[in-house]
C-alpha cells in the first residue's frame, strides 16, 4: 500500500463517484474517463504494462469517445431540472451492494486458495503476445470473428433504416 496506490485509488473512486453524482451527462462521461485513467494507472503501478496501456488505448481512446458520441447523438442530453436520482434508488443500492459483496468475498477468498502467490510474477508484453498467438490463438480468432460480425451487423442495421424510410 504505497503512496502511489492511495493516490490512484482516490482518483479512481473520485472519478466514479463524480460519474454517478454529477447532473450534466457529458460531465458524467468525462468523470468516468477519469475513473478509467485511474484504473490504468493502478495497472501500471502493479507493473502490468500491457493491461495499463490497453486500458488507456481502448477505454480512454475509444470507449469514452463512443459514450460521448452516444450522449450527443441521442436526445435527452440536456441537464435535467430536478435531481438525477431515480425513484427506485433503493433497489439499485441493494443490487450494487450485493455485487460489491460478492466481488469482495471473491477477492478476499483468493488469498486462501492461492497462498503461495506472494512473489509478483513478471509478465512482459512479449510474453502476452506470444501466448495470444500461440496457445490462445483459437479464442483470439473467435473473438475477432465475433467482433467483425457485430460490426457488419451494426452497419446493416444502420443501412436498413434508410431503406425503409424511402
Amino acid at each position: 500500500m504505497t503512496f502511489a496506490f492511495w493516490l490512484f485509488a482516490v482518483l479512481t473512486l473520485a472519478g466514479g463517484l463524480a460519474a454517478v453524482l454529477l447532473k450534466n451527462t457529458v460531465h458524467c462521461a468525462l468523470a468516468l474517463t477519469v475513473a478509467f485513467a485511474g484504473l490504468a494507472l493502478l495497472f501500471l503501478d502493479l507493473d502490468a504494462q500491457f493491461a495499463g496501456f490497453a486500458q488507456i488505448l481502448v477505454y480512454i481512446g475509444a470507449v469514452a469517445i463512443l459514450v460521448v458520441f452516444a450522449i450527443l447523438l441521442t436526445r435527452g442530453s440536456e441537464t435535467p431540472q430536478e435531481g438525477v436520482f431515480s425513484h427506485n434508488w433503493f433497489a439499485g443500492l441493494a443490487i450494487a451492494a450485493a455485487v460489491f459483496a460478492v466481488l469482495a468475498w471473491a477477492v478476499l477468498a483468493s488469498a486462501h486458495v492461492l497462498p503461495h502467490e506472494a512473489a509478483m510474477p513478471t509478465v512482459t508484453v512479449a510474453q502476452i503476445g506470444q501466448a495470444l498467438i500461440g496457445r490462445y490463438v483459437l479464442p483470439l480468432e473467435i473473438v475477432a470473428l465475433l467482433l467483425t460480425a457485430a460490426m457488419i451487423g451494426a452497419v446493416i442495421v444502420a443501412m436498413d433504416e434508410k431503406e425503409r424510410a424511402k
Partner: protein
Amino acid sequence: MIDTLDQIFVLLKHWIVSFLPGACQPAASVVISVAVIVVLFPLLFALTTVFERKGLARIQNRIGPNRTGPFGVLQPIADGIKSLTKEDIVPSSADSAVHFLAPLVLVVAVFMGFAVLPMGRNMALVDMDAGLLFFFAIGASTELSVFMAGWSSRNKYSLLGAMRAVAQMISYEVPLLMSSVAVVMITGSLSLNKIVAAQNQYTFGLPHWYIFTPWGLAAFLLYAIAATAETNRSPFDLPEGESELVAGYHTEYSGFKFALFFLGEYLAMFSISGLGTTLFLGGWSSPLEVLGWVPSWFWFFSKMMMSIFVFIWLRGTLPRLRQDQLMNFAWKFVLPLTMLNLFVTALWRFLGDGWERWVFCTAILVAAYVVMGRVEMRAEHFGPRRYRYAE
C-alpha cells in the same frame, strides 16, 4: 572525441547530477531530462512557426514576416508576447471548467509521447518494453481533449469542428497503428530502442532502414498519410477549415489558451514525425556508414525537421479534401492497403534472404495499388455530392 560529442547531452546530465547528494540523483536525472524536453520542443515550435510562415510565403510568392528582427526571425517572440498579454475570453455560456481543462489535457498528453522517443544513442527518457504501445495509447487520449474543447465552447462551429476532428482521428488512427505493426512484425519488439538498433546496420555502407524495403516503403507512405490526417494538417485540415468552420474546435479560445492549442498541434507533429523517423528512417542512425562520426542526435533532429518541411510543403501545395472524400479515402483505400501490407510483411519475413522476396512483395503491392486505384476511380461518379445518412 567523436564519442564525447555523440554523448555530450548524456555526459552533461551526468555531470550536473553528480553535484547532488546520492539519494536524490535518480529523481534529479529524470527531472533534468523532462525539463529539457519541455523546454526544447516549444523552442523548436517557435522556430517552426517562422519557418512555416516563410516557407508558405515563398510557395505563394509572398515575402512573409520580415519586420521583427533580421528576416523576421524574432516573429515568434512577438507572437508569444502578444498571446500572453491578450485578454483570455471565456464565453458566458461556456462550460468554464471543461473549457479550461481542454488545452491543458491536450498539451500534457502530447508531451508524454516524447518520453519514449529515442532522440539519439542512449537518449530515450524511458526505455520501455512496450514503447510503441505507450505512444499510441497516449496519442489516443488527445481525441478526448479535442472533444472537450469543442463541446464546452457551446458554439456550433466548435462542436462541428470537434466532431469532424474526432471522427477523422479515429478513422486514421487505425491505418496509423496497422502500418506501424508491420515494423513490429519484422523487428519482433515493441521497444523503440530495439527498432532503431535493428535498422542501425550497414551493407556496402548503406543502412538497413525499413523504408528501403518494399513493405517498409508502402508502410511509410501509409503512415505519412495517416499521420498528416491525425495531426489535422492540410490537406486533411477539415476540422479547422476556415472557410466553413471559422477555426473549428478552438474558435472560442483566445490568448494563451489558443497558444496552447497551437503548441499542442505542432508538438503532435513533432512527436509523430519523430515516431515515423524511428520506425522507418532508422531513428538516430546515420544515412551512410562513412557519416557515422556525426552525432546521433543530429541525425534524429534533422530527419524530424525534414518531415516537418514535407508537412509544410504539402500544406502549401494541396487543396483541402471534402469530408466524404476524407472518409472514403481512409476506409476504402488506406485501410485495405495497410491490411495487405501486413500480409506482404509476413511474406517478406518467411520468404528467406533471396531476391525472390523483393520481386514478389513489390509486385503484390504495386498491383494492389494500381487495381484498387483504377476500380475506385471507376466507381467514383463525378457530380453533385450525395449523402447516404444525412439528407
